[in-house]
């Protein structure tokens, strides 16, 4: 299988608490995949393991064949994995453009001395960073908001700034943590279009965590269902929807419900 991301036997424990165990997960090149599960199932913990914020206690994570577990978050980003956060984590007091420019940091090299001396490298990179920020804001459809303070933008725009910032790192895999949270139905429809454009136009694979089942079923080609830190089902939208274990995890067992 031509997998971009391969997770096998992933385990995570905090002291005596087992958050994840024996999780296998794969995202193919050019795929749109989803990770779903009830609240507290460990979805965000998976993301935090993938991006290096948590150190897994077992298993391996490979990105394009390279083992990445144990690496620092900034190294993993450099290797081509970018993320957004469940609760927006923008640099609120900076402009939208400056936020997106953050994504270019790991793809540029000018240091303090370049800046102080105003070397050609510094000047060329600055111009390129600025142009890239505008281009990515244009891609997510909010170029006109470039100079506005990120914290004052409407919520839907803030989500787009986060996307632009993540895309600016030139990822091969984009992780979206509940991208639909707080969006209205029109914005959610646009979100579906944006996810597809990221894959079709940029060739970036997408792995998303989402609560809105309608959105998940609409956009993802492959779904992994998590409950209590274990994988309970996987497959296409139709397969997962009809899986009794998934229904049980979400709705409870029949005798409990009755």
């Amino acid at each position, binding site marked *: 299988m031509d997998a971009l991301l391969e997770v096998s036997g992933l385990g995570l424990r905090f002291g005596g608490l087992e958050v994840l165990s024996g999780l296998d997960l794969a995202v193919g090149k050019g795929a749109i995949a989803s990770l779903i599960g009830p609240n507290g199932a460990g979805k965000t913990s998976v993301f935090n393991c993938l991006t290096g914020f948590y150190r897994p206690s077992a298993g391996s994570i490979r990105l394009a064949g390279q083992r990445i577990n144990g690496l620092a978050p900034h190294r993993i980003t450099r290797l081509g994995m970018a993320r957004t956060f469940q609760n927006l984590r923008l640099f609120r007091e900076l402009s939208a453009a400056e936020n997106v420019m*953050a994504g270019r940091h790991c793809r540029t090299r000018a*240091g*303090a001395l370049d*800046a*102080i001396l105003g070397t050609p490298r*510094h000047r060329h990179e600055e111009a390129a960073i600025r142009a890239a920020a505008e281009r990515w804001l244009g891609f997510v459809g909010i170029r006109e908001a470039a100079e506005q*303070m990120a914290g004052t933008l409407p919520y839907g725009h803030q989500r787009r700034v986060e996307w632009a910032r993540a895309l600016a790192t030139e990822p091969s895999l984009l992780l979206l943590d509940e991208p639909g949270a707080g969006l209205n139905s029109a914005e959610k429809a646009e979100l579906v279009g944006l996810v597809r454009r990221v894959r079709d136009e940029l060739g970036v694979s997408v792995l998303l965590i989402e609560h809105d089942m309608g959105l998940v079923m609409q956009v993802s080609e492959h779904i992994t269902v998590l409950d209590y830190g274990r994988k309970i089902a996987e497959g296409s939208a139709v397969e997962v929807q009809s899986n009794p274990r998934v229904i049980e995890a979400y709705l409870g067992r029949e005798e409990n419900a009755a």
Partner: protein
Amino acid sequence: MSAGGGGAGEAAVGVQRSERSIRKGAGMALLLLVLLLVPRFANNYYLEVLSEAWLYVLLCLGLNIVVGFAGLLDLGYAAFFAVGAYTAGIVTIRLGQSFWLSLPIAVVTATLAGVIIGGPTLRLRSDYLAIVTLGFGEMVRITVRNLAITGGASGLVGIERPHLFGYALHSIGAFYYVFLLLAVLGIVASHRLENSRIGRAWKYVRSDEDAARAMGINHAAVKLAAYALGAIFAAIGGCFYATKMTAISPETFTFNQSLLILLGVVLGGRGKIPGVILGALVIVIFPELFRDVGSMRMLVFAVSLLLIMLFRPAGIWPERWR
């Protein structure tokens, strides 16, 4: 059509902006000319006070990199000032070398000192960071107080005054120019750093460290760079301070000194270069203005600082987004 309209609007904004920058440039040039002419009219007292003010502009700008740009705390900043001053003293007196050699050595030692203080504090926040940096400042002062090479409690006396193009640097008028030049270089360097890749990285880490890391920014390297660059500013200031005074002692580099520099940064408005310059001028010039009130001088100074902080808690000229 809309594109054409946007272009015209942008062009108009461009003209406005360039007009403003010309006016700003002309204002700067005039101010610099006035500052350059000061030694022709001012007496030695004014030149002494102003030289000290320019030195503190450099020191406050250096600390501003750590406290303002990177949002860290440093209560031991005087240690880096001491590193510079003692480097100049040791190079000229103990090693008998030219003063100018002390500058590159001071830059290297300050960078090392910055990394040494920065390293263990990377995981610390606020109050813990305050305690560690405070301790570091005191450690440096007590170390130079007890080493033979630094002259112990009495310090180093007889530091050589340097020559530049065969011209001896000794009058207060000459030092006025030296410190003015250092302040200007400090302002230019700060401004360029602020609007650079590394300057933005400091703001990202200050704003949200985890988000910055997720964006591929090595927060540890970025913080160390802030400590090291801040240290270099102070060390260069320290070299010239030592040669101006010709004598240095550990008591110049106390916790009070660190606090005074921090006060200049916070008072003026941390993160904002013009604010920090203003803060540096205030901490040097205010106590001089109150000389007439004699022994009550520092009390009046303290009360006026309290009033400023009460009415302008973000500083006299705070950093604000646009």
